């Protein structure tokens, strides 16, 4: 299938879903007297989106020289590593509140380096810990942007002091 057709089908689906959702935008009493309501602009852009997607799909059948998404290209992609990274980012979001900034960041960076096959464990530990601690100190102590270090770190610092 051509790249244009795949993209256009995606936008047709998205625009149709968006168009469907336009009708669930609440109406205020007296809306009928309004020149432009909360759903007017979305309504017209949804219709434009659907129209352009359909034109693109039709063109993808008419024009012969369009680029194709080849199986060879898909096979050459490193899908496994990319998926690991996407999961790592979701995991980072999840751990940010639970573990606090310093630990969550250090773990995310270490996982990232490991996924990309960095071999030196010493380098991984030094960079991940120094970046997370350094950035935390920079934000909290220099720029005055408060960011939660995490309960574990807070308790540790409290116990030491």
């Amino acid at each position: 299938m051509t790249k244009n057709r795949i993209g256009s089908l995606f936008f047709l689906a998205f625009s149709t879903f968006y168009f469907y959702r336009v009708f669930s935008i609440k109406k205020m009493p007296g809306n009928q007297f309004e020149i432009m309501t909360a759903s007017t602009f979305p309504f017209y852009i949804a219709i434009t989106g659907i129209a352009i997607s359909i034109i693109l799909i039709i063109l993808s059948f008419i024009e012969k020289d369009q680029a194709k998404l080849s199986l060879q290209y898909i096979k050459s992609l490193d899908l496994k590593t990319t998926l690991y990274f996407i999961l790592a980012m979701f995991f980072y979001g999840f751990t940010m509140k639970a573990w606090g900034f310093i630990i969550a960041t250090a773990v995310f960076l270490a996982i990232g380096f490991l996924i990309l096959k960095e071999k030196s464990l010493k380098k991984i530990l030094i960079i991940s810990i120094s970046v997370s601690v350094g950035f935390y100190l920079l934000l909290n102590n220099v720029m005055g942007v408060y960011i939660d270090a995490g309960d574990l770190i807070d308790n540790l610092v409290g116990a030491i002091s």
Partner: protein
Amino acid sequence: MMDGILLGAATAFSMYNILMVIIGCFAGTFIGMIPGLGPISAIALMIPITYGMDPSSGLILISGVYYGAIFGGSTSSILINAPGVAGTVATSFDGYPMAQKGQAGKALAIAAYASFSGGTIAAIFLLIAAPALASVSLSFQSSDYFALMVLGLTAVAAFAGKGKFLKAAIMTIFGLMLATVGTDSDSGIARFTFGRMDLIDGISFLLLAMAAFALSEALMNVLENHKVSKQEEDELKKDIGTLKLTKQEVKEIIPTIGRSSVLGFFVGVLPGAGATIASFLAYGMERSFASAKDKLGFGKGSLKGLAAPESANNAACTGSFVPLLTLGIPGSGTTAIILGALLSYGIQPGPTMYIDNPALFWSVIISMYVGNFVLLVLNLPLIPYIAKLLAVPKQLLLPLIMFFSLVGVYLVTFNNFDIYMMTTFAVVALFLRIVDFPMAPMILGFILGGMMEDNLRRALTISDGSISFLWERPITLSILILTIVLLLMPLISEFLAKMKKRKES
């Protein structure tokens, strides 16, 4: 007026105030480089420091921070494709490809020269015509703004190669759709929030820009996993920190810088328009002016494509001081913070400010020029070192880029839902990149969407629902005619080229 200018010059060139400009530019550049901390955060951080200062020195420091932060934002756009500020999105279109080609130093140098020139030209304009321009900015009404937004959207033509206009158009629509998520500014009704409180404020620009550019670029690098040989890598890194521009290259970008600076300044004068529209318009205009051969280079590391938005966004920053200082109207979020600072000093900006407080008014304007000069002197020697960032091995650099992008967005709201949403957008952006749909029009549509809807609603209300507002006001009509001309320009030039060919044969 001359007395006021001389008084302002004496204040601006005092040792203390020059030191303030230097500190401001340095701090601003540093803060601006961190995604998520744009000029608004940088200025907000500086306000408590300026409380104990004389109003002129405080405002001079704040202005320096403003410029510095915009320049710092360009640096992260060029080096890691992470535009932390809307005004530097267009910088990444050609700046990042240049950095990818091993010309990071040159790209940063062009950004510095263009910013300096844009700021300088705009400062001169400001010096000459600030009070007079105030009336121009007041004469703009909602219908004119709507037309200006439509003109801004025509910049999508600049991102559309031959036969790709419809792809750019659907991406713009996609951006407009995303801009409608959240609470409707007029009625207060929630739209497309699916009952989630996290979406009630809409999607933030930073989140979308970071996901579409920085994160998806990093993921694309992981996905395609290009193995570069040691020899190729050495070749790429050889000139990474070089700032040298050839005579030919300088000649090429001078007219671009001139045109874009003037355009940027005048767009900046209009409240609400600002550096973002200025940079996109300048990019679009340059592409329209370029020869057929040069056009192909846009988006792939064109010098003109980098110089245009850079000079325009700096000129617009200077221009945005016109409505602020002469009318007391903040044209952007950043100038609103500056207005707050002025009020805290007990100064009410307005038409009489340059008569009541000439030292403050003119010293700020003159210090803008000094600030631009300081930025250039301060940043040029640092460029080779900043550019070396790209020499960090890929297995270390990519997770760091992802970290800075994610945390930059997290810092704004401290809501981990934003990290999930950003990752999801990055995956969608990755898919769209694979199928060759351009990201820039989506960002353009997103930025202009909200403003466009608000101004359309206002214009329709004023004209009682009639679309006659499109042709009733001369400013609106002129802008719309310009829009049509710009849209038809590729067709006209193609037609003219065909005619010329026919004549020759």
